[in-house]
């Protein structure tokens, strides 16, 4: 439900970059979204479609969401595992001494412009 707020921050930053780079329009925008980043991709896309109508450069922008898999590391048995399937508990040894290595990012990667 917070996707709209995040979309606004993304769009504002992209519009600013479009302005600075003196482009005519943004054709495609690529975002990297971690599996455990708290963004729901479908909601995000819906919010984006609605919000882009209010922009100067992004009226026809296609949104490409690249989902990055969540991977955690166990400091006890020194292995990695899929965060979404096992959360905080290591599936190999049962330890809770684990941390997320990747998968919570939200990055504005690049934009295709003309």
């Amino acid at each position, binding site marked *: 439900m*917070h996707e709209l*707020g995040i979309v606004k*921050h993304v769009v504002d*930053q992209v519009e600013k*970059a479009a302005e600075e780079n003196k482009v005519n329009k943004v054709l495609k925008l690529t975002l990297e979204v971690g599996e455990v980043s708290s963004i729901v991709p479908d909601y995000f896309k819906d919010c984006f479609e609605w919000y882009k109508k209010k922009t100067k450069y992004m009226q026809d922008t296609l949104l490409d969401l690249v989902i990055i898999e969540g991977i955690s590391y166990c400091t006890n048995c020194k292995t990695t595992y899929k965060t979404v399937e096992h959360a905080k508990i290591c599936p190999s040894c049962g330890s809770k001494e684990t941390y997320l290595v990747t998968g919570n990012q939200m990055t504005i990667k*690049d*934009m295709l*412009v003309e």
Partner: protein
Amino acid sequence: MGKVRTILLQKGVFDDNDLQARKLRDYLKSKGTFLINVMSSPGAGKTTTLVSLINRLKGFMNIAVMEADIDYDIDAVRVADKTGCPSIQLHTGGMCHLDAEMTKQGIDGLGSFPDLIFLENVGNLVCPAEFDTGAHLDAVILSVPEGDDKPLKYPLVFQKASIVIINKIDALDYFTFDAEKCKRNILENNPNARIFTVSAKTGEGMEELTNYIKKTIKEWH
């Protein structure tokens, strides 16, 4: 048709907000104003806790309150009535959180720089955790009726907060709420969290919380 090219951005979605938040934090520091961002789910007792806290602190410092809600001004009126401190209502216009820019607008709207500003964020445990408001201290309130497992279900907000206030402990007899388990669940997410157990209604535990805030502000100056 113009030439098509790719521009590499490689920016975090929250980068611009984080930068504005840092600027706001520094700006307030230069004015000697300490900002506390208070987060909780709806109904955890944010406003009641603030009223109780402000009435204990106001003899020692000037305080103002910013109330953020999606709509209506009932909280701002209530706080002003019960504490005598200036309060303003911020409407987020449907947004479920405040960001640094909205917080700055609220501070500009206050038109003064008291010793302490409380920002009562929108009642929500998800979105406010993602957006740095520029506060010097983030606090989260969790109330007994919500259950001791809440820190496990909404980990991010408990990771971001430096203090966690367990409120409504006067109602412990009526709910299956294990306070020790709740504390373990909080510390599992955030080993550095300072935890206070209070009842804003009866005043139990409020003295300790008040003293902690006084001490924190004194050390910050």
